[in-house]
């Protein structure tokens, strides 16, 4: 009434003008992400993987491609397969994490980055060499043993295969 509503609104806008800006200058500054963040690269520990392909079975989109041969590895623990092809197609992945939930041996982890853009769609497929050689910063999603260690993938070092298991 009497124009006071408009005046009050304008004062609130002016008050907000003098607050510090909520946005940051990317890429010089970055917002810290949670340690459970489901990132783009995958961390795969081949020493733990047996080639059971549960991850490929439970992916809702069917983007994981695994080709294995009987390898004669780890014969005492009930023979693992040797994995020849392990392709994950990031271009169609929805990062739901059902593959990580499905892995019974804690060999596959979600990553923690998000800056994997490429120029071609075909280069968005992660081949097995890249999975083997990339830096392993596993996200703590669905891995309570990593949370018990208070591991933060943005800050801490890589973990090796014997530290990430249950």
């Amino acid at each position, binding site marked *: *009434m*009497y*124009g006071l*509503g*408009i005046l009050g*609104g*304008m004062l609130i*806008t*002016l008050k*907000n*003008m003098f*607050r510090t*800006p*909520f*946005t940051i*200058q990317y890429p010089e500054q970055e917002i810290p992400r949670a340690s459970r963040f489901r990132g783009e690269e995958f961390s795969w520990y081949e020493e733990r993987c047996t080639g059971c392909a549960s991850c490929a079975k439970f992916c809702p989109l069917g983007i994981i491609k695994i080709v294995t041969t009987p390898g004669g590895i780890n014969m005492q623990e009930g023979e693992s397969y040797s994995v020849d092809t392990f392709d994950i197609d990031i271009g169609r992945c929805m990062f739901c994490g059902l593959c990580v939930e499905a892995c019974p041996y804690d060999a596959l982890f979600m990553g923690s980055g998000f800056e994997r853009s490429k120029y071609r769609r075909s280069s968005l497929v992660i081949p097995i060499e890249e999975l083997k050689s990339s830096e392993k910063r596993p996200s703590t999603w669905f891995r309570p043993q990593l949370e018990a260690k208070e591991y933060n993938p943005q800050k801490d070092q890589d973990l090796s295969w014997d530290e990430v298991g249950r």
Partner: protein
Amino acid sequence: MGPITEANSYYSSLYKFFLDLEVGGVDIIPEWLAYFLAGFLVIFSIVNAVVIITTVATWAERRLIGRFHNRLGPNRWGPFGLFTPIADAVKLLGKEDTRPEGVDSWIFNMAPIVFIVPTILVFAVIPIGENTYIANLNIGLLFIVAVTTVGTLGMFMGGWASGNRFSLFGAMRAVASLISYEVPMVLSIVGVVLLSGSLSMVEVVEAQTIPFIFLQPLGFFIFFAAASAEMNRSPFDVVEAESEIIAGYHTEYSGMKWGTFQLAEFIAPFGVSAILVTMFLKGWEGPVLPSHLWFFLKVCFFWFIMLWIRATLPRLRIDQIMAFAWKILFPLSVLNLFVTALELLIWKDPTVSELWMMAGINWTIAIVCLVVISRAGRSRISTRPMLFARSEISYNQSGEVN
């Protein structure tokens, strides 16, 4: 050089400079050429100053609106992002100049020009500093009113020639609101003319012993609202409402033609602020600083207020805009004119103390009008309380149901 141009110190100094220019003892510039060159330089400098200040204002507007939104504005190109208008201009010049099928090409091409020329032309009669102006027309205010009306014609031409139903909507709304807001604007100007005794802008500035904003609060508010509506600025910007008719009359334009429309949209607030400052706030007069700087600061202040209003308020509907003009602003402007004329009849040549008495009476009338109008429209602008269905379950401290 006649007596009119002699008073203009900016022009006359340039004229004398050109006339006295000698190469080896011989006057190389005849009088008509000096006249032409001096005039051309004055016009050139003021037009360029207006356009350059507007391009810097686009950067400033984006930064300030960003701060209103609690975020940073553009700050990448150049120090603090000052090269952003250059980047904008380069981008617009490089775009394809589309022309949809079915447009009327003559009118389509002429519309941006018809739209931008009046906004710059307004600066011809406004005194920017002490004795600094392009021309001291003795019908300055009438010139301004006539010229700004032509701008809306450009808007209508753009909307009609596009061949797009949404653009036609925008154009029709523009014409409707223009016709509605001409009358209160002119009547509020007449109030100022009565007090100053002349239509010339330079004499309006000199006639203000106390600034006219104290003497004419209603006139100030009516002119502010009517001029905001004339240049389609929030909260009256239905003509180019992005959420409803996409972009109104400039939907089908691309490249530099669209850039011209946008430039004119940004020059208009400066023009209106300049007129407002000259008529109601004593123009370039001020104590310590040079007169150009005072003028610039006052214009920037009103530009900031328009920006603040734009960032905060939602827009009105077209029939509400016209209702506001005809039912509220028009009677108020007639009342303002009547009261001013009555006061000038009583005090024919008012002294300063009588002017302050007039100011007191006018402000009282303005506040009474505000209260009366708010109460009359009470059903439309009062909040309504909401009901609640109360919960029957209640809790005590230990978490059990009572």
